[in-house]
Each structure stands twice: as C-alpha cells, then as structure tokens.
C-alpha cells in the first residue's frame, strides 16, 4: 500500500498539470497582497464608511490577519476547482491514457488503488493548503504586521484580539482541508465512473459552482435544499472567527463533511471493484 501511495505521489509530482494550482495560489495571493499593500487603506476606509457614527476604530485595522481572512474568502471558490483539476483525473485520466490496464495487471488490489489515489490526492490538497497558509498568513503578517481582527458579518461585527486569532486560523485551515477532501473524494468518485479524463473535472466544477450559487441565495425554496448540499458545510471555516464559537454547529458540520468523504469513497470502492476495464 505504501509503495502504491508513493508511486501515486510521484506521478502527481511529475505531472506539469499539478503545478497549475501552486502557480494560481502564488499569483492570486501575490496580487491581493500587493494590491492591499499599495491601496489597502482606501479599501478599508470604503468598507468601514458605512459604520461611521456607530463605531470608532483605531489602530492597525489592515493587518496580516485581516488580509489573510480576505484571501481565504476570495479563494473559497477557486481552491476546489484547483483540487478537482488533479483529483478528477486520477482514475479516469489513467483509463483514458490506457495506463489503468498497466496498473491493474500488477499485483495491486483495486481497493488499495482507490485508497492510494485518495491519499495522494489528499496529500496534494494538504500541500496546496500549506502553501496558501504560508503565503497568506505568514506573508501577510510580514507585510502588514499584527493587530486585532475585525470581521464584518451580515448582522454582526466580530472583533477578535490579535492574541486570540492565530489558533482560529489553524482551525480554519484544518476545516478547509476537510472541505477540500470532500471535493477530492467527490471528483475521485466521478473519476471511477468514466474513462473520460475531462468529464469528472468539469462535472465537479459545475456541481460546486451550482451548489455555491444556490447556497448564496436567501430564498425560502433554497433554504430547504441547502442542508443537502455539501458545499453548505464547506464554508463552516468562517465560524472559527465567531465570538463565541458555536461548537455544536462546528461539530455537526465537520461530521457531515466526514460522512460525505466516507460516502463518496464507499461508492468509489463499490463501483470500481466491479468495473470492467475496457480502456
């Protein structure tokens, strides 16, 4: 099993496509940090303009923590797409290229192969998140310094002391990892169904975009649908910045994300173990 995971990681590392995600994160984070560094003050003034008269703000509002939070908010749509680009192709890509035959005529079990691919995909997600974390958190702290984190929500304003923020970011990254693992298991499942390399990537992206759009509309009809969309639980990382944190909601959301991973992986295993390889 370890050999299989190692070879899967090796293949991911050697594919040029794997580096698109890293380049995209580098670019997006770099652009946001640069733009806020140059013109951040006016951006903050504009946001807090609406609170004039209600709230008096002093100190370093545009600090590393706020910039990191803004980056995370911005990347919430892009990250799953970058993940799907790799994980949606893990099995179907091998089928399309004919290399699935090479793998399955070796002494490896199909279940092991699915697990190895999921593990390698998760490792890729972890590296992406680590890069995002280092660039957005460490980079922003270096550029903008520390300070209290002020977050405007639809009905409330959360002010978190600088000394009380860092662990929340760690928690947010852990939840983001779980959320992206749901995406990777979902696209891996789709990848088992087809021998077409592009299909699972496109379908994953389409599902995430559609679910996110439905989730962002406050319509009574959609309120009934939202609990059944896994994307509804992928944004729970934001709740790490609530004061106080609703641990009940967090626990439920995390459990639902884990259930989704298990469900998608189980379907993948069930289907792939019975699949005839014609490619």
């Amino acid at each position, binding site marked *: 099993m370890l*050999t299989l995971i190692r070879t899967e990681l*090796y293949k991911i590392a050697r594919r*040029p496509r794997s580096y698109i995600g890293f380049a995209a994160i580098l670019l997006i984070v770099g652009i946001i940090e640069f733009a806020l560094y140059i013109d951040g003050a006016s951006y903050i003034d504009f946001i807090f303009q609406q609170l004039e008269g209600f709230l008096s703000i002093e100190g370093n509002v545009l600090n590393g923590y706020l910039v990191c939070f803004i980056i995370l908010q911005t990347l919430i749509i892009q990250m799953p797409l970058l993940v799907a680009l790799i994980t949606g192709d893990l099995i179907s890509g091998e089928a399309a290229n004919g290399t699935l035959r090479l793998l399955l*005529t070796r*002494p490896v079990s199909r279940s092991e192969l699915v697990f190895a691919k999921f593990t390698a995909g998760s490792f890729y997600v972890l590296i992406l998140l680590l890069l995002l974390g280092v660039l957005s958190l460490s980079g922003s702290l270096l550029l903008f310094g520390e300070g209290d984190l002020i977050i405007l929500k639809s009905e409330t304003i959360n002010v978190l002391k600088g000394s009380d923020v860092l662990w929340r970011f760690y928690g947010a990254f852990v939840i983001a990892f779980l959320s992206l693992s749901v995406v990777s298991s979902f696209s891996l499942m789709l990848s088992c169904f087809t021998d077409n390399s592009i299909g699972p990537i496109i379908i994953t992206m389409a599902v995430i975009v559609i679910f996110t759009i439905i989730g962002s509309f406050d319509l009574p009809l959609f309120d009934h649908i939202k609990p059944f969309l896994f994307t509804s639980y992928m944004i729970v990382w934001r709740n790490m910045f609530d004061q106080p944190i609703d641990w009940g909601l967090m626990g439920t959301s995390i459990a639902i994300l884990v259930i989704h991973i298990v469900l998608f992986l189980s379907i993948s295993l069930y289907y792939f173990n019975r699949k005839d390889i014609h490619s």
Partner: protein
Amino acid sequence: MDSGIIEITQLSKTYKDILAVDHLDLVIPANCIYGFLGPNGAGKSTTLRMMLSLISPDNGIIKVFGKDLNQHRKQILSRIGSIIEKPDFYLYLTGIENLNLLARLSGIRPNSKKIEELLDLVGLSSRGKHKVGTYSHGMKQRLGIAQAIIHDPRLVILDEPTTGLDPSGILELRQMILNLKQAGKTVILSSHILSEIELIADHMVIMNRGKALVQGNVQTLINDQELVVVIETNNTPLAVEKIRNNWPVLGAEAISPTELQCQAPKALIADINKFLLEGGIDVYSIYYKRKLEDYFFKLTSN
C-alpha cells in the same frame, strides 16, 4: 484434460445482450507458445482480460498456476507479465522511470543494471532517458515487452503485440518471444497475423463467437488438413483442363488468370510439374497456400 498453466472452465461473459464468451473450456500447457486466434469479436481479448482480472466473468472458473484467480489474484498477477491491446505508458516519464515505477508495483526493487539490460534487450538503451511521449509506436511496443518481463514472470500474455511494428520489428519480436520460451516461460500470443502463430506457436486455440472451435498442437491440427497447392503458369485454362483429365480427384480450378489451385499430396507435386511441362505449359511457380490461413477460414466461415 491434462492440467495446464491456465485452466478455464465454463467461462462466460455477456455485454448487455451480446454473448462475448460462451461457456469456454480451455487448457493452456506450460512452457509453450500458445496462439490465440479468431476473427474480430471472437472473444479473444475478453478472455485474455478475464485471465488478468481486468474483466469479471459472469460464470466460470479461471485457474492460473493451479490456483483460482478470484481468490489468489495478487499472488497470480505477480507472476504474469502482459501487454493488452497496445502499450500505453506515462508519457511525461522517461522509459527508465516508467520501468522503475512498474517494477515497484510488481513487487520488486528496481535495479538500474537490470533495467539497462532490459532496455538493451529490446533495443532502447539509447532512448531510456527520453520521455515516452517522444517514442514511436514501435518503441512503445518494445518498452511494453520490457515492462512485461521486468519482474521475471512465469507467464507472459501478449495481445496483438505486432500491431504497428515494421517488418524488422516483427522479426525481432518473434525472436524475443522464442527467447522467452527458451527461458522456460509460457507465452500466450493473440494475433491477427496467422503466419505469426503458424511460425512460432506450439499450441493454439481458434475462437469464434465466444467459443473455442479447436484447440491443440498447431502442427497436428494443420497436418490433419489436406494441402492446397497453387501453381502459376502461362496458360492456366489449359493447365486446369489437363490436370482435371489426368487427376480428377485433385479438384483443380483456376483462381486467377495465371494461377490454379488443387489439393495434392507432396509426393505428387513433381509429377504435376513434369506433366505440365511435357504438355507445353510453362510453370513459373508452385507453392503451398498458407495452411493455417485455410484452416482458419474453413473453421470460422461457418
């Protein structure tokens, strides 16, 4: 039936309402080159894929090395090397990297000396460090042979291995297959090129519509058939008439303006030649038609 390296009992596979393999019974002896013949859609590839557990049978048992494939899949596959359909590789990796990766998956520690020897054997030593994406089809086919034998398997399954190879490539591959047999391995060879099977296979099966029409020793099966002789002359209608008058049982008939064919034992050929020459007919050539080809078409045309 004698026990073989592979024993297949009542194997069946249906795709929707098409019966691809129909209650197939097959015994493949050890240490031989075994030919798989049949027209397109005969069920050859489906059978080979089932032997490698790429496709699950609906019914039947496949025993390899005396063990049930279903129950000892990993153990059995560790002793089989194969090329199925066409050799596909990770195009973004070099030939050496592909072999390294596949060796690991076969449960062996890759050894650079062994990989070099293998590349040398298949004539790719100068291209081993190049990405497979830059290889020609023939080079991929050679690399396919290398990956199939990298773990020193007892059984090698080659499905249409000569596809896309030039004549010299086919010749080299034939020699490689014979070398594998000499090294004590069993080679299962599926091919559309009947002469290929006739030249190198010891045993064969001819399949059609998912069934084994015949199986056994190649020479025994072919020698049981009558020989077809083709004679090229300068006056075929006259030659046909003369042979028919002298040897009515040979069934002489014109097959082209310059050629006739008849069924004749070897001993009579010199007499026919002499007879035609004395009758004022020039004979340009006399040869046996491909025996296996005739046998194959005779069986599968029904």
